[in-house]
């Protein structure tokens, strides 16, 4: 039934959706977890409390296979490190 009601709504979209196969995103796996962990480690302020805490948590989540959440945590750790850097 949903498609029926969404007809008038999707008709309002101006740009057509590409009908091809969905594009695969690479930033959602263990591989990218590793990339981020390395990046965090290379960050000058990685040892500050917040980035370190978030980094630990992210790593832990990634290790448990919860890549999405882990990646989010790692990114926030990197963000915190960057902010620390700018603030300091």
């Amino acid at each position: 039934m949903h498609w029926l009601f969404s007809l008038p709504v999707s008709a309002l979209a101006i740009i057509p959706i590409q009908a091809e196969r969905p594009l695969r995103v690479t930033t959602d796996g263990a591989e990218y977890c590793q990339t981020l962990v390395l990046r965090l480690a290379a960050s000058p302020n990685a040892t500050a409390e917040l980035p370190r805490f978030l980094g630990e948590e992210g790593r832990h989540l990634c290790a448990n296979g919860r890549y999405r959440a882990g990646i989010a945590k790692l990114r926030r750790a990197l963000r915190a490190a960057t902010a620390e850097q700018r603030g300091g």
Partner: protein
Amino acid sequence: MSDAPRLPGLRPTPPRLLQSAGFRFALLFIAIYSVAASFLVAVLWWATAGALDRQTIASIRTDASTLVERFRESGTPGLVEAIEERLALDAQNETIYLLVAADGRRLAGNLRDWPTAIGEDGTWFRTRIQHDGGVAEARVHRRDLPGLRLLVGRDESERVQLRLLLTEGVAWSLGAVLIFAGLGAALIRRALQARMRPAVATALGIAGGDLSHRVPLSGQGDEFDRLGATMNDMLDRIASLMAGLRGVSDAIAHDLRTPIARARAKLEESLNTAAGEAELRAAMEEGIADLDNISRVFQALLRIAEAEAGARRAAFAPLDLPEVLRDAAEFYEAMAEAHEQRLETDLPEHLAHVVGDRDLLLQAVANLLDNAIKFTPPGGVIRLEARDTGARIEVAVSDSGPGLPPQDRAQALDRFYRADSSRHLPGSGLGLSLVRAVAQLHGGEAVLLDAMPGADPPGLRVVISLAKL
């Protein structure tokens, strides 16, 4: 309302659903409501998703410009680093980048492959992306750099969410619309039927032969009351026509039988007692004269009935009233002279044109002049006048005869009235009755007055008013 006669086979069956006007009104109601709801949804979509879109586009555009700037400043490595950094800091997990070399080699970004079949530099497009959580939609912008191709995009999951939300809202509200419209339809249908029922009941009563039914009015003054009032007017008119018809048959029955009986008696008597041929011949001549008189009364009755029924309105034509009246005056002047009376006229050269029946008007005026000449003693004066009173045209005939006491005037306009004092004069007694019928046919009336109030004798003045064009 429940006093409609329950005639078998005439009971009003409720209309089948699609034939019901109430249902059709309801359908219309649903359609209008649906259009309004769709419009509302469209506006809502425009305001929310549109704003979201604009925001996304602006953000992508800025991002892409910054990246291009970065490339100009520090070349490919700088650009790659910038992309990697942006991805690393993207806590919301909504950015999409892809940087490939001219040979298709992937340099940076989070898309695995360059999408096939996309446009030139500067193209905007929307695509689906797959990550471990599932499939989402994204908006992507392409920028080409020397030896490089860059895609900058944003995940539009929020937009999809919004669409789902709106879709759900539309589904609910449409459902509600349908339910309310259906309810409204049923209510309208019931209300319509309830309001129509008195009219239908009345019509059925009439069809059943009882003309006394009238549509009860609700007093709301709405369309149904107007319909009912119109129906009642129509019924009143029909009833008055029927009464007129009955009046004619009554008049024929009562007032033609009398002269017929008289003529018959006279003929029979002379047949039994006539002494000779001469006497018989005389009786027969008298009989023929009586018959002619009867047919004259009959003719007058028919004319009155025609005028009263308004049947002659088809013969209406614009006419020059002063001319018609001058003719009539000239016609009767000779007779007034023979009676040693004076016939004076006061007629304007022109009058606003009257639409009417020349023959009937002429006959009415002739009847009045004839009466006036009959009742005015020698030496008297008869006046024929016409004037425009603004709203009406008035034609008046006055005489210096004995007049008519006020209490007899209303009666005088009725059929077969003859003042006791005039029994000895010839005439059918239908003259004034025709005058009244003709005046009414022309949207006016006939009024009897004293010609010279206070004088003795007061004389009679008959005024016919006619509606103007």
